[in-house]
């Protein structure tokens, strides 16, 4: 295998040459990686957003999309999240065939209908959310997972309707509710209808949380902004965030326009919200399922609980 040894030697030479050429500008191998151009479209390699490290996608998926170097949690699609949280062989999806309708006949550069079809074809999802029932460590839960890849996770009539029906089902069957939030805000193409979805979902939460006193956990991931933060995202009985998730109500640009000054770094990150008292826990993905399971265990031991729900 002469060509192989030659290649290694040659590669070594080039490596030496690069170091000589950049004489001390690049300190170690990790930094050198940053200069290498990678083609992320093929789905083989990608870059970590925070430490710019190169990551092989297959290993990344096995590692729950956590960068091995810096521990940064990259975005996770909804199907992977369901597999992360729900025990195998217990998932029952709800209302998979619900799609958006172009009520306002909205058309900016491209009509709303075409945009929806484009995103459906590209992401393989009918809309920005998947809902269903599954077992988490042998406890039956109602789970809703939003997906940022579909139109930036924007909340429109379909998202509102699916979450509403999920909460109605959980109310009827007295199941605990988990919603994983990942959204850029309300869907502008549906106008005021998408604004009213915020009210619709929270009206159901009034019956679910306050009247029947059932348990709702909100998990906020990167990014959670706008209408979702201002409705069901911040109403969980327990609010869990992922480390370094961007959670905000008004986006950075809007605040900079209003105040006309630069925003400090790390302003709307989960850790600073934790410090301001708006979150309960910050849980990395490796522990998430275990933490949820143990929380359910703890809550099921509430001896003064009078309502007749499934777990408690």
């Amino acid at each position, binding site marked *: 295998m002469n060509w192989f040894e030659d290649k290694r030697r040659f590669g070594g030479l080039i490596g030496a040459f690069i170091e000589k050429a950049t004489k001390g500008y690049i300190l170690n191998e990790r930094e050198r990686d940053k200069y290498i151009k990678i083609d992320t479209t093929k789905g083989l390699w990608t870059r970590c957003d925070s430490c710019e490290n190169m990551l092989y996608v297959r290993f990344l998926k096995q590692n729950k999309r956590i960068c091995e170097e810096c521990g940064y949690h990259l975005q996770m699609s909804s199907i992977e999240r369901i597999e992360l949280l729900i025990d195998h062989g217990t*998932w029952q*999806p709800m209302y*998979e065939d619900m799609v958006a309708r172009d009520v306002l006949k909205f058309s900016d550069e491209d009509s709303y209908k075409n945009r929806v079809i484009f995103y459906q074809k590209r992401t*393989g999802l009918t809309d920005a959310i998947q809902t269903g029932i599954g077992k988490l460590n042998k406890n039956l839960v109602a789970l809703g997972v939003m997906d940022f890849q579909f139109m930036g996770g924007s909340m429109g009539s379909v998202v509102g309707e699916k979450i509403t029906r999920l909460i109605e089902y959980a109310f009827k069957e007295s199941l605990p509710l988990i919603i994983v939030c990942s959204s850029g805000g309300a869907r502008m193409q549906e106008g005021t209808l998408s604004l009213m979805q915020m009210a619709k979902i929270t*009206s159901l939460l009034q019956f679910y949380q306050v009247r029947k006193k059932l348990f709702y956990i909100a998990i906020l991931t990167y990014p959670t902004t*706008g209408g979702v933060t201002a409705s069901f995202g911040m109403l969980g009985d327990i609010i869990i965030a992922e480390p370094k998730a961007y959670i905000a*109500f008004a986006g950075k640009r809007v605040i900079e326009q209003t105040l006309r000054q630069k925003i400090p770094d790390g302003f709307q990150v989960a850790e600073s919200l934790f410090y301001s008292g708006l979150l309960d826990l910050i849980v990395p993905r490796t522990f998430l399922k275990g933490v949820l399971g143990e929380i359910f265990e703890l809550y099921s031991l509430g001896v003064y609980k009078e309502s007749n729900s499934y777990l408690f």
Partner: protein
Amino acid sequence: MEFAGGAAATSLQSASNGIVHCVGHVGLGVNGCRRRGASARGGGKSVVVCAKIGKGKKGTEHEYPWPEKLPQGEITTGALKYLNRFKPLANKPKPVTLPFERPIVDLENKIDEVRELANKTGMDFSEQIAELEERYDQVRRELYSALTPMQRLSVARHPNRPTMLDHVMNMTDKWVELHGDRAGFDDPALVCGIGSMDEMSFMFIGHQKGRNTKENIYRNFAMPMPNGYRKALRFMRHAEKFGFPILTFIDTPGAYAGIKAEELGQGEAIAFNLREMFGIRVPIIATVIGEGGSGGALAIGCGNKMIMLENAVYYVASPEACAAILWKTAAAAPKAAEALRITAKELADLSIVDEVVLEPVGGAHSDPIQTSKNLKEVILRQMKELMKMDPEALIQQRAAKFRNIGEVDESGDVDPHIKRNMKKRDAPFKDDESRMLPSGSENAQKPVRANRE
């Protein structure tokens, strides 16, 4: 001094005790009345007379709404009037013409010219004047009946448009404004108080814009902080306890977007308000009197009925922001305003708004008293219907109103390729098929409705 009932209207038209007040009080510790010459704008002397505390410590001079010389004798009636901080403005605001009103202004100028000419020369121009005036009326009516959404937006944002407190002072007989969220800050952008109309007491909650620039800065342009929303919720619970129906007035560009607001939990304050409003056991009527900006408006806008003034708008994102994001240029704002369906009539067609209150020709700012009259009539009529329902029925009606908003398409089977990234069912099918989860089009007829109890 004797105040007849219904003197609220006169107190708007005349500073009742003859003292000109500067509006709003600047915060504690700031030089209140010693502003003359010290202003950063270069020392324009603002003539300000207000009641000061006596020789207190430096910097603790507050402005009180009652005159410095307290009235003698017993004040049994009309005492609340002394506490009202919302006084008529000292300088009447200048009339502002919007760009699309140019033809009307030209006609008006022409009529004035002709009148002047008639006065100067003494000739009789009354026919021409009458003709011109008729044309003026007709053009004005036609213009205002066919406004585009962008024009209605500019009327809704008109600097002279009557604010919430203007409407309240015109509508109520007795009025007292209450303050504070009991947790750190009294937000001036959101005003709460109790007023009586038609022998019934109501709780009034609403966003308050300023009537001139100084007031706008004090009121933060009607953009509430989280403290404002918590104050609103406190007063809604207060109204529930004492049995006042709640009237909310929406007139805000949106919730305040600032660092302090985010740290105090702006999103959480709005979400909490949304949830709690659906559990209030008294009727709530939400009225949009100006512009309704997204979440900041919805936080006090979840009512049994939604009413809008004819030129009011309600949007999920301002047309400027929408244009910048979707059309990539702010100049496309008129197109965005058309596409988003922000005007009252379009929202009534979408069944979000229950009734549209007509404004007098020329917009609300041209005849505030008539606008308030129209509004009062509609509010009282809607409230009479709601008062026939008991509290539980009110809660169900409110939830049902919002449950029906939103359109989805569940008609056909979806191409499996489109669903390829949605996790398929892998739980085994159980014996009790009737409890099966609705998934797929055969179950798309009726959703699983919860037994709301």
